[in-house]
């Protein structure tokens, strides 16, 4: 009976088991087939399970795609976030140009628009009704202004504030104005949306885990006799686990495919209204679409959750089935 012991012969052939790796791969192949066969055996209930998993996956994925399609809108607004630096009255034109140049060289600043004193006066004359009053003044009361546009990666409230503070400390600046309220609101809203999607995705992921776990648990119960006999004739836990794990993976992948289908249909239904909205916003919005990476991530999430759910069911229930 010892592994090295000489085996008595009850049959006629002298074949040996395959190399362990080869045998392992072979059993994975048969287990995958068994997993697919389970699905094919009761197609309606398999379809139902895959549909439920698909809906659970499609909801967060769809919201994610929608939020993503709002991103260009957000960055469009981000692009208009700016800091106005009012320069001291006694600063002459070359000095203010030098300051603009040095600011442009900074990595956290995308662009600097310079408005000279005379430009400011001209604009003020054009836009206001104080034309006569201005004419009455002996010299131009308006300061030169530098409008600083932060670089794309530096438009968060904290870094904007830091940049404004730094500009305020520079000797050439008289006053620095930063209107951040809307930046903060937009940021807070986006963050709320993201967190909301994360929470929903987490809860629905848990639901997928439980759905697959329960399906596999029922499968284990149905195959109680088979598991017991397999244990009696020397099947390892890993051997017994394998078909169930592949079954869970098949459910997960089928659910992922269903989820992709549902998101695709939903976005197609949204595409008309979204395009009209986009037109109203001067095409700042791109119509939401399911990019290949998101679709792949959805499929992968389904596969992982399916495998995870099967793993939970298998580790919880297989150990309890012992031959008696």
């Amino acid at each position: 009976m010892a592994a090295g012991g000489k085996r008595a012969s009850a049959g006629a052939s002298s074949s040996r088991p395959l190399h362990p790796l080869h045998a392992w791969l072979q059993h994975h192949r048969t287990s995958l087939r068994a997993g697919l066969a389970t699905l094919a055996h009761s197609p309606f209930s398999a379809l139902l399970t895959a549909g439920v998993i698909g809906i659970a996956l499609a909801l967060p994925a769809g919201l994610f795609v929608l939020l993503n399609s709002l991103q260009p809108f957000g960055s469009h607004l981000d692009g208009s976030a700016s800091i106005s630096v009012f320069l001291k009255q006694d600063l002459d034109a070359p000095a203010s140009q030098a300051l603009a140049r040095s600011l442009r060289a900074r990595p956290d600043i995308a662009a600097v628009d310079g408005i000279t004193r005379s430009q400011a006066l001209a604009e003020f004359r054009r836009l206001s009704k104080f034309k006569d009053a201005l004419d009455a003044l002996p010299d131009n009361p308006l300061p030169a202004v530098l409008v600083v546009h932060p670089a794309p990666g530096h438009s968060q409230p904290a870094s904007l504030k830091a940049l404004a503070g730094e500009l305020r400390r520079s000797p050439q600046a008289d006053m620095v104005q930063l209107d951040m309220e809307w930046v903060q609101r937009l940021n807070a809203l986006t963050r709320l949306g993201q967190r909301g999607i994360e929470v929903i995705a987490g809860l629905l992921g848990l639901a997928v885990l439980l759905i697959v776990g329960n399906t596999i648990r029922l499968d284990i119960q149905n195959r109680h006799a088979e598991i017991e006999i397999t244990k009696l004739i020397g099947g390892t836990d890993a051997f017994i686990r394998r078909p169930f794990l592949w079954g869970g993976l098949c459910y997960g992948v089928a659910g992922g495919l269903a989820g992709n289908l549902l998101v695709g249909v939903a976005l197609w239904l949204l595409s008309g209204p979204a395009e009209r909205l986009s037109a109203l916003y001067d095409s700042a919005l791109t119509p939401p679409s399911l990019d290949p990476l998101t679709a792949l991530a959805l499929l992968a999430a389904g596969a992982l959750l399916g495998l995870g759910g099967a793993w939970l069911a298998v580790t919880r229930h297989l150990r309890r089935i012992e031959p008696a």
Partner: protein
Amino acid sequence: MIHFDHVGKRYPGGFDALRNVTFALGRGEFAFLTGHSGAGKSTLLKLIAMIERPSAGQVVIAGRHLEKVRRSDIPYLRRHVGLIFQDHRLLFDRSVFDNVALPLVIEGYHPRDLARRVRAALDKVGLLDKEQANPITLSGGEQQRVGIARAVVNKPPLLLADEPTGNLDPDLSREIMGLFEQFNGVGVTVLIATHDLELVRRLGHRRLVLDHGTLKAGGEA
């Protein structure tokens, strides 16, 4: 092959299924395990197959002290023990061929070798023409022979049978016992639990007699 040294088995609740059982069964021996029902025959076989663990004493199978075997190693040891049950324990959702092939699938045989060995085992028990049948369509004797084919297909050095002829008429019983004698003839150690004393007497092999968990006779070879 089998050594029991002062083995006791107490089930939860305090029932002693086996008490102070000591015997040895040599390689290639053929022995019957007899006794009234509830005498501990099944428990003794379960200790050898590691379905149960003893609560006292030592069980040594082919030189391995079973109390030192880890749970994860049990499957590998069971592959060296062919088990045959009174209720056959066949799977009715697959063919006779697939039932017999299961131990070889577990051990990871190439499909070609597997088919050859399954057919050899089915030929041995005279069921080669039934390989595609579902076991549920077979008679009790035929089902038992499928169970035997499954037990010997991976050529274990030890065969354990628990009431293998329990539900069979005398002629079929003799036939089944004849199969066990054939396997014994090629060196397989055989231990059969049975209460068919008539058959045991006629075959005249070594007898281990259990009575209320203690070994009454046959302990010394």
